[in-house]
Each structure stands twice: as structure tokens, then as C-alpha cells.
């Protein structure tokens, strides 16, 4: 039984089509990344997935049934921008959110305190939300999303605009949820974050899914067509159009994308002919490259 299935959902605002016949499957216990540039339709998709808005057409299923009201208690949502009552005290706020998810006020208070202790907010429970720093507010928002111990947690850009130490604390809490068997979904435009955390991804652009599925398989589909080369000496071999489709110089090394039908051995020979190599490694493409290529193809 899949945690979420989206079947050809579509949402338009006037003439603008935000989400266009998007389908995807999220399996229980996995970390799923919804990737795409700004304005691709990530937030619109998330909102429909959790019932904040209703798709114009298509079906959203959760835990094997069409999405309905009672599913709300099984899911937690962390919006992109912090959404907390600024004038409310932190603890009151968390208890309120917990109660709306069906907890008793006693349980909600107890869990809030445990979470605050764990994320280092214990001293701040009596303070108003507006007195908290951005990082602390994001942690509070996270607690609000998980306080009722939901099976499925949806996070919209959880790691953007966070200082590194807060990001680490949140990432650890995030991974603990994964270990506890929860299904996690997050959206991001940072490919490296997705690469490190996700089991599966869906790449969307202009409201359409370009790539969807297990991250390993997505990558394998693109084959080992990349070579990392560290060299000293001449660089003529990089400009051989028969061998090299494109390359990216990172300073310490160059990442080369092989031309179609080019043999990596051929490139190795060409390179040794004019330079002294310290490294030559065949790689799977990075998610960023896949993304750029897929978007390029879709736009073409």
C-alpha cells in the first residue's frame, strides 16, 4: 500500500497551469524529494497532496484510499515560510497545533516539552514566537508538524534559509523520523541536499513531472557517461567534439560529459597523449546534471 499516489492531478489559476497532469507514487518509509526550480509547481503539488487545495482534475490517494478529512491527523505539514502566530507563546502555540491534530492538551504539552528539550528550545517555551530567531522558529515549526507523531510528514523547502548548525539539528531529527519508519516528503531546489537524503525523487518543471522514481534507477538510466579527470599539461583533448560533449572545470578537476557513442578508452588515450593524468574516473551523473539536461530537453 503506497503512502501517496497522485494520478494525473491538474491545477490551474486562470490561464496559468501550475500543475499539469502530474502523477507520482510515494512508498511507505522512504524519503521522497520533490525537485524543481522556483515556480515549477512544487508548492501547488504539495498543497493538493495534503488537501489544502483541491485539484481541478485527477485523484489524490493516501494510504490506499482517496484523500479524506481523517487523513489530516496522520500527516504533518511544514510550510515553506514560517507560519506561526507571532504573538503567541511557543508552548501554547505547539499545544494548540497538537490539539488540532487530535491530541489532548495534556499529551500535547508533554510532547511539546520533550521536543523542545531535544531541539534546544527548552528555555524558550514561555517566550513569544516573535522573540525567537529564524532558526528557532523553523525548529518550532518542525515540532508543530511532527508533534502528533504522523505517519507521513510533508516539508516544503525545510532546509533553505537556515544557518548550518540549525540545518544539522533539523536534518538529524529528520533522519530519526526515517529510522522510525515514517514516510517523508520534502521539496527543494537544492540538488545536492536531495542527492544526499532521498530514496526517490520527482523532478518537475512547468508543472510537469520530467523524471520520477528511485534515485538510483534514475541515475543508472543516464548511464556512466561522465568522467572526472585530474591532469597537468595540455588540455586539447577536452575540445575534441567527437569525444567530449561538454565539460565543466571545477579547478581541482574537470568533469567531462562524453559525446554520444564515444568510448571512454578513446578519451583516456587522447588525454594521456597531451597531459599527465593523476585521476581518471567514470562516474554516474550528478542530480544537478540530470536536472539540467532533463530541463533542457523538456524546454527544447
Amino acid at each position, binding site marked *: 500500500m503506497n503512502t501517496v499516489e497522485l494520478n494525473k492531478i491538474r491545477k490551474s489559476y486562470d490561464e496559468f497551469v501550475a500543475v499539469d497532469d502530474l502523477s507520482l507514487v510515494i512508498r511507505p518509509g522512504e524519503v521522497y524529494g520533490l525537485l524543481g526550480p522556483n515556480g515549477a509547481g512544487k508548492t501547488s503539488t504539495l498543497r493538493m497532496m495534503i488537501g489544502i487545495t483541491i485539484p481541478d482534475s485527477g485523484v489524490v490517494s493516501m494510504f490506499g484510499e482517496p484523500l479524506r478529512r481523517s487523513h489530516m491527523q496522520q500527516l504533518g505539514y511544514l510550510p515553506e515560510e514560517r507560519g506561526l*502566530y*507571532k504573538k503567541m507563546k511557543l508552548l501554547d502555540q505547539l499545544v494548540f497545533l497538537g490539539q488540532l491534530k487530535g491530541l489532548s492538551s495534556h499529551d500535547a504539552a508533554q510532547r511539546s516539552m520533550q521536543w523542545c528539550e531535544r531541539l534546544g528550545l527548552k528555555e524558550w517555551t514561555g517566550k513569544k514566537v516573535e522573540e525567537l530567531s529564524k532558526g528557532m522558529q523553523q525548529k518550532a515549526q518542525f515540532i508543530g508538524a511532527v508533534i502528533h507523531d504522523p505517519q507521513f510528514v510533508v516539508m516544503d523547502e525545510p532546509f533553505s534559509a537556515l544557518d548550518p548548525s540549525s540545518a544539522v539539528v533539523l536534518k538529524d531529527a529528520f533522519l530519526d523520523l526515517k529510522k522510525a519508519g515514517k514516510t517523508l516528503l520534502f521539496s527543494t531546489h537544492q540538488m545536492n541536499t536531495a542527492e544526499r537524503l532521498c530514496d526517490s525523487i520527482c523532478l518537475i518543471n512547468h508543472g510537469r513531472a520530467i523524471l520520477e522514481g528511485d534515485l538510483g534507477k534514475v541515475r543508472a538510466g543516464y548511464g556512466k557517461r561522465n568522467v572526472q579527470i585530474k591532469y597537468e599539461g595540455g588540455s586539447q583533448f577536452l575540445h575534441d567534439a567527437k569525444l567530449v560533449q561538454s565539460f565543466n572545470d571545477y579547478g581541482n578537476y574537470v568533469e567531462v560529459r562524453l559525446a554520444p557513442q564515444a568510448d571512454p578508452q578513446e578519451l583516456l588515450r587522447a588525454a594521456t597523449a597531451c597531459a599527465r593524468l593523476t585521476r581518471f574516473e567514470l562516474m554516474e551523473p550528478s542530480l544537478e546534471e540530470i536536472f539540467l539536461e532533463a530541463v533542457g530537453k523538456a524546454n527544447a
Partner: protein
Amino acid sequence: MRNTSLMNTWIIIKREYLERVRQRSFLVLTLLLPAIMVGAFLIPAKLSSMKSDKTQRLVVVTSTSQFGEIVRQQLMTGTKADGEKPAADNNKDADSADKPSRNYAIEVDANATEAERTALRNRATAGDIDGYLWLSDDAVAVRKVNYYGRESSGFMEKSWLSDQLDHAILLQELSQRGVAGAQAEALLKPVKLETVRLEAGRETKSDDKGMFYAIFAMVMLLYTAVIFYGVSVMRAVLEEKNSRVMEVMLSSATSTELMAGKLIGVGAVGLTQIGIWIVMAAVYAFPALAASVSVGEIRIPPLTLAAFALFFVLGYLLFSTVYAAIGAVITSEQEGQQLQFIIILPLIISVFMMGPVMRAPDSQVAVWTSMVPFFSPVLMYLRIAVQPPPAWQIALSLFLLVATIAGLLILCARIYRIGILMYGKRPTLPEIIKWLKYA
């Protein structure tokens, strides 16, 4: 399974209520507003009574000293000449508001010549006297007399003065025709009209002025409270929208629960605040007020109080529903101010209609305007307070009001549901109409 929807609405009501009541501004406003109102009544009363220790020195210039003496008597005693006892309560209602609070020292001068006029003018300029009344026979004959003073008299004082002169001239004329003393006073005794209010077959002596103030105060309270709490609903919706709390809330509750919770929660705060004021008024402020403006005993019939509570709740629901929809549509408070006109306009019209309705509570205009839902919270309440209309009129007015509220709740909930997730540009009217059809 428990009823999630009711439970959520209850949790939201509780939050709205407690967060507002706990705020310092709630306490400040609850205490400050009565203080300002009491101040507004007490300070002018205090100020006018402070004037009284300064004696006004006047010279009454007449052709005969006998007439001068009558005028002097009249001015000194005021209404004492009516033959009534000047004791505190009796003539308080009739005269206290008009009679100037200062004392007079009056000198009679029977030398009505131009030379004397110059002499008096010089005395006034020198500050020896404050002014003089020129009552020569010629002037009295045409009933056109002059008062020359260093400071022009206030409106109240002028009308009081002219009343006293009328009286004095009549006394003089009567005595010239052989009617004098008690007989003349008996002829001039004014009529005093006392109104009796018939309420459920019982007679109650009513105090018109007190009643008027009480009704007026309550209508103004109704009016300001509706705007005040309506605006706070609008602000709260706007704040949730801008702070994106709305998205978090919508992942737990439906938009209808959010709107209902907000309307009821804020309304309960309003009732609490007004309740506190009524208790404060009953315990302390009202006797003080009553004494200072001497309006006598004010009795507010229970029906009027019940009608106040009912029309406050209904009026609040009507207008704050619209306010909630406005809050969902706008993106900043400035935009809200422009749109608020939709609400303020009917309220202003109601306030303008108060005068005509109060004067003739049974007129066609009064009957039909008090049926219109956007006017009825003020006008039907006013009619009930002034003179209870037939039951069918109250029932029809209430029915129309409740039906309108129900209809608006459905429409505004739709606007609300879509509006709260719209950011950026304010939607145009055609767009909002499209939202209403969507659903």
C-alpha cells in the same frame, strides 16, 4: 468517533478568545474606554461649575426705577418668581441645564440718557462693571433690547436672559393693567409636561432626557463595537494570511472551521468586554455620571437590555462575516480601509436615520428601514428602546436579519476559502464572483 469539526472549531474559538483576553491591550482598553467616557461627561460639568464663583456685575438701565426693580428681582431669583420653591430637585430638570451657573450683582439705573450710556461704557471698559442691559421704554416697546458686555454671553445664558426679560416685561405690563403680585405670578405660571411611559399595561414615569442619553449611548456602543470587533476579525484574517499561519491551519482544519472559530471567538471577546462595562457602569460609573449631569434616574427596561444583547450579537455576526471575507481578499490593511466602506456606509446611514426614527418610531420610514438587514441592528433596536413596535415587525426584522446572515456566511465562506490562499495581487470583482460560483 468524536466530531472533529466541532472539536476543531472549539479549539480555535478557545485560542482566539484566550489570546485576546490575555493581551495587555484588552485590559487597557476595557479600563480606559469607560474612563474616557466618564471624563468626557465629568470634565465639562466640573469646568462649568468652576465658573460660578465669579460674580457678574450688571447694570440694568430702565426709564423707571420700578421696572428696573422688577428686572433685578427676576434676574436675581431666576425662576423663583414662578412661585415655586427654589428647593433643589423641583425645578432642576426644567432649568438647571439652561440657567447660567454664575452669580449676579445687579445695580438699577433709572437714568436712560445718552450721557449715562457713555458713562456706563467707560465703566465697563475700566472693568468696574461687566456689562449693562439697555431697557429704555422705547426699546421695550418694540421688544428689542441690547446687552452690552465685555464678554459675549454664551448661547445658554442668552436664551435664559431673554426668557427672564420676557417674564419681567409681562409682569410690568400686567401691573400697569392693575394685576400685580401673586395674581400676576399665577397668570404667568408655565405648564410643566410630564410624560408617562406605558409598559405592559403599567405606568412608569419616564425621564425623557435620561432615556435619550441611555438609548443614544447604547446605540453608539452597538455601532462602535460592531466596527471595532469586525475590524479585529479582518486584521486577524489578514495577519494569518500574511504570516502564512493559514497554511498550517488548513493542514489541520477546514476553512469553515477557521472562519466560524474566528467569528465566535472574537465575538465572545466583545461580549466579555461589554459585559465588564455594564457591570462597571452598574457598580460605579453610572451613579457618578447620573449625579454629575443630573439626568435623574435612568431606568433601562429589561426588554431593551435583552434587545441590545440580541442585536449586538446579530449585528456583529452580519458585519464581521463581511469583514472576514474582506480580510481574506485583501493583502494589506490599506486595501482593507478602502473596502471597509461597504460596511461603514450602511452603519452611517443607520446613525443618520436615528433622529427621524426616534421622533416618529411608527412612521412608514421607520418601519421599513428597520426591516432592512444592514440597518436593523441599529434601527430596530432603537425602535424597541423608544417605543416597542408590534411583535410581527420585530419578528419579520429578525427573520430577515438571520436569513441574511446565513446567506452571507455561505457566500463569505467561499470567498474566504479561496482568498486565504491567494497572495500578491488583490482579486478584482469579476474574479471574486467566479470564486462564488466555484465551490
